[in-house]
């Protein structure tokens, strides 16, 4: 009990510390100099990370049934029977997320002090970044839907601010706006989902909602709620068809891409669906939709990633694809696996992005992998860590991504069917291919650049190393039973997905297929990597990509235009909207309505101009009409009545 209250007392500090940091950097940042800004910025997050790890530790010591702590800070919006208190909830799911978010954020903050050290808006950058961490922690620690929504919108806002960070670039401003509007489109549905929840349950508190959900909701209502929530997740987590903002979001400084657009914010959708899993389970349609969207996203964006040359865009599409994996996991009834993949992906992808950042930094803002090469000799630390990240990402046995992806693949095989499994297997080989395409093109081969290499400084290398460690070790949280592990993470998270039992310790007979599946996925990954090696490392394969490109020209066109999503949206939504706006303003507002008003005004003016025209003067007519008026009134009163 003591531990309980101790935790309850300091939960609020986890998000509050970054907020303080943000406030400091906002108000005083420009005055105090970069050193202090950096210290405050990283320090606040660092403290928060230490605190959450400490709480995690205490939390683990609690008995399972007590692992659910709620704190009411104050009643935020009380209105009649509606109330939205600022509630923080600590349960295994939010604990894991909070620890991951604060930890990864801390590493990226440290990295940023090096990466951004020459930027003149250093303080602004750390203000946004701290604010982001605050909102993200609020999102994962939220105890009801509205608090989650604050965090949800807040991270979207910070994402917008950070994408547009280099606002003088027209493309950055455009990408920021696009990201905000597209995700807000998703938020709109999410908000409707919250309303629907409130209308049905009379509360938006997580505990009460999920507890009552099976009794209260009919399948139809559950479907509606689940789909609306999922629409929010689609926007935020960049799933097809709302994924188009994420590649453009790469206009942000690279550490931001690592933090927001790979490790944390974009995974919020996965977190949300996992959080509401009880509702999703009530509706097969919703669950299937989640799975299908996840699968489609995973596949489509993996294919697009194959042909791009911009290092950050490849990683962005890779992120979208991996998020698709997570949703697939959710859709096939393996939320634990999805969250596990979320964690390992966060480590690996943050590592890849930071590595890419170091590469870009080294080559002075060069992002085209065709103009890199042979960097292994120049920045070896980056090379090694990047490769570890790439291995983890591709799902090579022994690295983090392997275990988590395997968990999803297994669930897919069991619940989704062979066809889905094959598709995702293909995607896995694509993943191996495009990740190592970067590795081979950027770090090996001949030198295709001629600038002075800027080596990453210490504060940039240390986070890389730390993340590399996590990208290897992170997987051992959830070694599956089939390999003789304990699946610690699955067990830890299980109470959250109450009605759902995580992969039971498999029967002796069932272990064999699982291991077989693992072998298959490892083969697929190696196949992808091997193809990349053949294409980019061997002299024989050099011409292969070009030949392939010519052979399947239409498909290549399709892929390099990212399946034409952007163009279609431009033609179907953006342009008609702008035209409508112009039409309504000029044709309706300025013509129809205004002319009606002007007509009234002119009729008065016209009427008014007749009287004075009868004679030259006006004053005496006023007098005459005054008297006439009185006369008529008197006449009415005295003569007629």
């Amino acid at each position, binding site marked *: 009990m003591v531990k309980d209250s101790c935790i309850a007392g300091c939960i609020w500090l986890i998000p509050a510390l970054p907020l303080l940091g943000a406030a400091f950097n906002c108000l005083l940042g420009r005055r105090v100099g970069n050193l202090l800004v950096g210290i405050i910025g990283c320090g606040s997050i660092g403290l928060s990370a230490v605190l959450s790890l400490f709480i995690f530790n205490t939390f683990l010591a609690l008995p399972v049934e007590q692992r659910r702590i709620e704190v009411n800070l104050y009643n935020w919006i009380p209105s009649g029977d509606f109330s939205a208190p600022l509630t923080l909830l600590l349960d295994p799911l939010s604990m894991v997320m909070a620890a991951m978010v604060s930890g990864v954020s801390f590493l990226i903050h440290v990295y940023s002090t090096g990466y951004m050290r020459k930027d003149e808006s250093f303080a602004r950058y750390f203000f946004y970044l701290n604010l982001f961490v605050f909102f993200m922690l609020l999102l994962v620690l939220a105890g009801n839907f509205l608090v989650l929504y604050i965090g949800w919108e807040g991270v979207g806002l910070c994402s917008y601010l950070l994408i547009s960070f280099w606002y003088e670039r027209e493309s950055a401003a455009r990408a920021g706006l696009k990201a905000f509007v597209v995700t807000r489109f998703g938020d709109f549905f999410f908000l409707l989902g919250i309303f629907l929840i409130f209308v049905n349950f009379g509360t938006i508190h997580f505990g009460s909602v999920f507890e009552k959900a099976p009794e209260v909701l009919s399948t139809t209502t559950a479907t509606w709620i689940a789909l609306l929530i999922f629409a929010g997740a689609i926007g935020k987590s960049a799933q097809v068809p709302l994924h188009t903002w994420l590649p453009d979001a790469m206009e942000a400084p690279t550490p931001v891409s690592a933090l927001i657009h790979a490790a944390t914010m974009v995974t919020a959708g996965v977190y949300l669906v996992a959080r509401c899993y009880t509702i999703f389970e009530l509706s097969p349609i919703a669950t299937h939709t989640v799975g299908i969207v996840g699968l489609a996203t995973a596949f489509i964006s993996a294919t697009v990633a194959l042909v791009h040359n911009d290092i950050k865009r490849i990683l962005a599409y890779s992120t979208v694809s991996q998020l698709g994996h997570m949703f697939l996991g959710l859709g096939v009834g393996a939320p634990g696996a999805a969250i596990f993949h979320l964690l390992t992906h966060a480590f690996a992808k943050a590592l890849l992005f930071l590595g890419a950042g170091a590469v870009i930094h080294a080559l002075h803002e060069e992002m085209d992998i065709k103009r890199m090469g042979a960097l292994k000799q120049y920045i070896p630390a980056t090379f090694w860590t990047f490769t570890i990240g790439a291995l983890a990402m591709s799902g090579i046995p022994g690295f983090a991504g392997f275990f988590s992806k395997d968990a999803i693949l297994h669930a897919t095989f069991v619940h989704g069917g062979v066809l889905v499994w094959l598709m995702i297997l293909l995607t896995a080989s694509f993943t191996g291919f495009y990740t190592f395409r970067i590795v081979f093109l950027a770090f090996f081969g001949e030198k295709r650049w001629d600038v002075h290499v800027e080596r990453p400084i210490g504060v940039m290398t240390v986070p890389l190393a730390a993340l590399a460690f996590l990208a290897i070790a992170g997987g051992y949280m959830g070694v599956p039973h089939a390999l003789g592990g304990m699946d610690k993470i699955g067990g830890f998270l299980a109470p959250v997905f109450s009605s759902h039992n995580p992969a039971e310790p498999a029967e002796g007979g069932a272990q064999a297929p699982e291991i077989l599946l693992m072998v298959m996925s490892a083969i697929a990954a190696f196949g992808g990597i091997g193809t990349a090696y053949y294409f980019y490392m061997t002299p024989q394969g050099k011409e292969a990509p070009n030949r392939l490109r010519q052979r399947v020209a239409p498909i290549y066109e399709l892929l390099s235009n990212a399946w034409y999503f952007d163009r279609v949206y431009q033609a179907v939504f953006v342009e008609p909207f702008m035209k409508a706006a112009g039409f309504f303003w000029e044709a309706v507002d300025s013509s129809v309505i205004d002319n009606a008003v002007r007509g009234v005004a002119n009729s008065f003016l016209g009427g008014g101009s007749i009287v004075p025209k009868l004679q*030259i003067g*006006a*004053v*005496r007519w006023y007098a005459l009409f005054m008297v006439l008026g009185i006369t008529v009134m008197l006449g009415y009163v005295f003569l007629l009545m």
Partner: protein
Amino acid sequence: MVTTSHYLILGSALFGIGVLGFLMKRNVIVLLMCVELMINGAGVSFVALCRQTGSLEGQVFVLFAMVIAAVEIAVGLSLILLIFRNRATLDVDKLEVLKW
């Protein structure tokens, strides 16, 4: 027997003559005088009715009306002086400044 009606008719007549003059005359100074006539006509009616009802409020009202009349004449005449200096006429028909 003189009834209140007699005085009221007298007051009305005075008022009416004022109105008539106000509409017919063109000299601004005379117009002001016509206003005085109207005020006096109203005053007669007031005082007559006042005697009828036995309350003094009507007389007080007439007193205030006189004050107003004095004010009006003072300001009005000084305005007329000003207008005359600027426009060199007192004919209302030629003063069309109020025209829009």
